[in-house]
Structure formats: structure tokens, C-alpha cells
């Protein structure tokens, strides 16, 4: 008998007999009914409460905002994808500037040292966000791999305001996660942090020290 068979047999031949499985009512984690403004306000409040930086911009002007952020933070070497429209637009806008663009869509084995030591920031798109917790939703792709949002000291994430939803449960249900899970699905809420030294908060322990969210609105806000 294998360990597997032994364990499963013990579980099936339970001394006190079979157990009844209760039904679950998920009402408490859904049905928030927030307006667009409330959703946005909550998202911003929560992600800034954990040290995330939110910069409002528009779909038309966002690459100019990006250039300003790169300038302000002294980012000289930016890693990014190529195919996603966020990466494509950023590349087009930054082509003439003096920021070095690093291709993220390469096997990590060929540029690990460069990613760990010589990359100032990673730029990624996001699939959406969660208002209740101030979380970004990322599904890394070959174009924007897993480590792009983790290894460089600054993570710049581009988020469209109309993709923010109320709760994590709502996102999982509305987008059919259960039938479409990618290799790696991520929720990111703020930069990397620790409180392991006497409960004192410190940022950037293993992942990025800074998380900048470029929050794109469809048009200029009044």
C-alpha cells in the first residue's frame, strides 16, 4: 500500500462515520453596490494606506505622466513588455528619450543578473483592481513575466479606472477564474513590506520598495 492509499483509506474509513457537508452563503463577501466614485475612492484610500502611490492620468496623456514619473524618480533603466498595448504605447512614447528600455519578454536565464542588479523599475499592465482592499489584479504573461512586478526596486502599474471592481469574490466570479487559471495569478496591494523587526514597518524587503499606480481615466476629470 502506498502512502497515498493509506491516507485516503484512513480518511474514508472514518471512525465516527461520514460527515455532512454544509452549504455556504457568500452574501457577506459580495453585493457591495458601490458607485463608480465610491469604488475609486475606496481603491485609492486602501492602496495608499499601504504605501502605494496613485497618480491620476488619462488614456490619452498617460505616457507623458509616465515620463514625468521616470524623471522624478530618477529611473534610467525601465524593464517592460512589448505586445501589450500598455508596453507598446510606452515604448513608442519613450523611444526618443534617454531612458533605457529593457526587454522583459526574454528567458530570465539570459538576463537574471541584469534584472536583479541593473533595472531601476518594471512597468506592467493590470487586468483590474479590487476596491474593497486596494489590490491590483495581475496575470503575468510571456510578454510581462512574473518577476517583472517583483524584482526591480520600483513597480509601475497601469490601471484603467473602469476595471476596478468591488470585492475579490466579485472578480473571481465575474471573470470565471475557476475555469481559466493562468500559471500565476497575483493580487498586489502596495510595495513589499515587513514588520518582522519589532513590529516596525519597513518597505522593500524582498520585492519593490515603491509601487506607483498610473490610474487612467477615460477622459480628463473636471
Amino acid at each position, binding site marked *: 500500500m502506498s502512502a497515498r492509499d493509506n491516507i485516503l483509506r484512513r480518511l474514508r474509513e472514518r471512525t465516527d462515520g461520514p460527515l455532512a457537508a454544509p452549504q455556504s452563503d457568500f452574501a457577506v463577501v459580495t453585493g457591495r453596490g458601490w458607485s463608480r466614485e465610491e469604488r475609486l475612492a475606496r481603491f485609492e484610500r486602501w492602496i495608499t494606506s499601504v504605501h502605494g502611490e496613485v497618480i491620476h492620468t488619462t488614456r490619452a496623456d498617460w505616457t507623458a505622466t509616465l515620463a514625468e514619473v521616470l524623471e522624478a524618480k530618477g529611473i534610467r533603466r525601465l524593464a517592460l513588455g512589448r505586445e501589450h498595448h500598455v508596453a507598446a504605447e510606452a515604448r513608442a512614447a519613450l523611444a526618443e528619450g534617454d531612458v533605457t528600455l529593457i526587454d522583459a519578454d526574454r528567458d530570465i536565464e539570459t538576463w537574471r543578473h541584469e534584472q536583479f542588479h541593473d533595472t531601476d523599475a518594471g512597468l506592467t499592465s493590470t487586468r483590474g483592481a479590487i476596491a474593497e482592499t486596494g489590490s491590483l489584479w495581475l496575470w503575468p504573461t510571456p510578454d510581462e513575466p512574473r518577476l517583472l512586478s517583483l524584482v526591480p526596486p520600483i513597480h509601475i502599474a497601469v490601471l484603467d479606472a473602469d476595471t476596478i471592481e468591488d470585492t475579490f469574490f466579485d472578480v473571481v466570479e465575474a471573470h470565471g477564474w475557476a475555469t481559466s487559471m493562468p500559471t500565476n495569478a497575483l493580487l498586489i496591494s502596495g510595495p513589499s513590506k515587513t514588520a518582522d523587526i519589532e513590529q516596525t514597518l519597513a518597505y522593500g*524587503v524582498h520585492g519593490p520598495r515603491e509601487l506607483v499606480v498610473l490610474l487612467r481615466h477615460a477622459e480628463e476629470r473636471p
Partner: protein
Amino acid sequence: MSAAQEPVQTFTPREFHRQAHDALGNPQIRANFRKAMDGLMAKRRDVFSDWDLEILRELGANIRLRALAKLPDLLERLEANCRANGIQVHWAESGDEACRIIREICERHEAKSVIKGKSMVSEEMHLNAHLEEAGIEALESDLGEYLVQLNEQTPSHIIMPAIHLNTDEISDIMHTRTGTERTRDVDYMTAAARAQLRERFMAADVGVSGVNFAVAETGTLCLVENEGNGRMTTAVPPVHIAVTGIEKVVEHLRDVPPLYALLTRSATGQHVTTYFNMISSPRKPGEHDGPEEVHLVLVDSGRSNIYQDDELLDTLRCIRCGACMNHCPVYTRVGGHTYGTTYPGPIGSILMPHMMGLEATKDLPTASSLCGACGEVCPVKIPIPDLLVRLRREAVGEGRGNVPGAGVKRTKKEAAAWKGFQWLATHPGVWRSSTFIAGKLQALMPSKLGPWSDYRTAPRPAKVSLHALVKQHKAKHHQADKADGEERS
């Protein structure tokens, strides 16, 4: 003397009383834990303030109960879906077997260096020692775990492993072990650890992590963390081995959001952690990073035995948030190491007897005043105080005998004393004459009753028993009432 220079101290549950005595006499330990636990309790209270906590706890308990009710089926489903996704699944009946499986995977890859994300199951099975015996270095990467490992200690809390150390002690440890400057600057120390560990991530042959929730429906492993070392561990080295207890499985992906909401809020009072990392497969063709191989090791190690018993089963609902220890007046005073077990505090006291046997852990179920705080804060409503009482009964041979080492604390004298008391208390005539006699002989009552009266005054039978007093009182009033009635008429 600083912690860094103290000789390595080993703790065992067999010495709980001595260790508790030592810890209570250590003002530094007491101050460190008091401060940390007060902070954690306040944060938890605040973060749940706008929730209907009872409804959320009810749902959490219900999801975990449903998973346990279907446990064997869900484990098979998890295995099938993981395999379909390309994750290799292994089963281990004991911690030793799990260690062997992990060592063999490492040896197949000629691994010399393993980097670890936080995993209490790997602590439970002493994986690091096992790997080191085989010449494989195992390095902890969670900052707290790293500090504890540098100091040659074990975690004193399941969420905050280095909670027993203060900033100065940590500064000393880092200075002595890694050559950093002595400082109180937490940012400096964090940055130093970041630099030290980043090199190790790049060099590691294998990453070993735990699992917070394993989703049967999708074959997904969920990891909850703030630091990013979990993501590093599971994405940088070419091989990722996840190790988890068989009880960590949940049925559906939609079961995860409520449990995640309960876990972060109960553990550290955070409304969310920085990262929620869901892994469903190794690197696929065309993908550019992530491990080429992902393994899942499912560990039983006494869990299927707990599963047999309707009452003990509730122990397996646990999602390892640590709220029970944060709120435990005993844990807060004696600290985590005193318990001498991988899991300290109330959850440890109801879990470790199954893993180590009651012979070694017989004092743990008594390390509680049964104040009930642990049960009240448990996010999945485990009736911890009831389970502590159950294990006390098992220890003296008055339970169902299905906990290893049951009856180890039974003494003929105590058993006879309780039997005698039971007989007395169920025979009213004898009871009354006994209390009458006890009242007359009260001067003969010894003033020392063993350890019980070390810190308490020994009880002394009343001259007149309560029963007799009530009887006298009733008789007096009856007469008075009668007299009163006669006057009026």
C-alpha cells in the same frame, strides 16, 4: 547579555513548567511579547470594525467544514487537477517521509542550496536539519525566519517568527552573524537582509514554500505574504517544492476570498497582505520565468488520526492565523518558545498532542485558564477551550482513548479521589453527613495542598454547610411568615 551571545537554548514540551518559570522571570521576553500582542489585538479589533464579523466567521467555519467533510474526494481532485496542470504530487504519511521525498527531489537536481519561503509544516517536520544532514543548505528567506535561523533558534510565533526579539537584539544578531553595523535603524537592517538574500535567491537550486490554501477545483496553490520572499521562492529557482498538511485543501476557488479576508485580518490586523500569489502550474512553453518543475508534497503526520473523531476534527479547520496566541493570556506571558513545540499557544496545545503524543505534551492542554479568548477570536470558530478540556480528559484516561499517549497522566490516587467524589456527590444523604462532619473537623484541614496552594490559600470547609444554612433560613422565614399571617388575620 544580548540574545546573540547566549548559548543556544533548546526547548521541549516535557519541560513546560520549568520553561514557563524561566520565561516569567525574564523581563525582556515579557516586555517583547506584551508589546507585540497588545499591538496585534488592537489592530485586529480595528480592521474588523466595519464587518459583520460573526457572519464572516460563520462562512469561514462553514467553508472549512465542507472541505473536511469531503476531504478524501477533494484531495484526489486536487491531485488530478494539479497533475493535469503539470504539478507533480507526492503523499507522505509522516514528516520523515515528506523530508525524504523533498531530499530526493533535491538530489535528483544535484541541489546544493535550497531557499525557503515561510512554511510551518516544514518546521513541524524539521526539514532544514534533514536537508543539512544530506549536505544541502536550507536558508530561510522570510525576514523573521532568517533572523531566527541566524540566531540558531526556532520561531516563537507562527506568523511573526522573531517576535521574541527586540530591535537591539536583532541588530546584535545581524552584526555578529553577517557583519552589518550595529544600529536601531530598521530600514538599514531590512535593506542589508534584502541584499544578502537576493544573492541567495539567484544562486538557489530549489525553492521550498508552504501553502495557505490548496484549491481542489483548479489545482491551485495559494500563498499569502507581505515581503515578496514567497513570490521569489516560488518563481526564481528552477524547481519549486510546496509542502502542506492534507487539511489545507478547499473545494472551490470562490471559497478562497472569504478565508483570505479572515486570515489577514485575524493574523496581523491587515485588511489585505501585499501579495496573494496563486500558482497553478510550472513554467509553460513560451513563458520566460518561473520554475520548470513544481512539486506538491501532501503531509499527513497525525492529521488523518485527528480526522477520525467528530470532536477532535474541528482542530483541522485551522487556517494558521495565530489570533489564538495573540489573544492568549498564557502565551503573552510565557512566549512561544516555552511551549517547546512547532506550534505554540492554544492551537499548538490542541494540535501538538496528536503529533508528539500526550506523554511529551501532557502539560500543554493545561497551559490555559480556559478564559475562552482563543475560541472567541478564531476566524473559523474552532472551539479551542472545549478541545483543551477534551485533551485534559484524554490525558487522564477519561476520554475516548484515541489520542496517542491517552491516559499518561492518570494516577490511581487522583482517579480514586474523583471516583469517591462522584459517589459522594450523587448520594445526598451521605453528602450531607460528610459536609456536616467536615464542618466540625475544619481545623484538621491541611493548609498545604501540593502545588495548588503554592499561590492560593487552601480552601477550608465552612462550619455550617450552605445546604444547612439554606435549610435554617427557610425554616426561620417559614415560621416568621406563619406568625405574620396569624397577626393579620
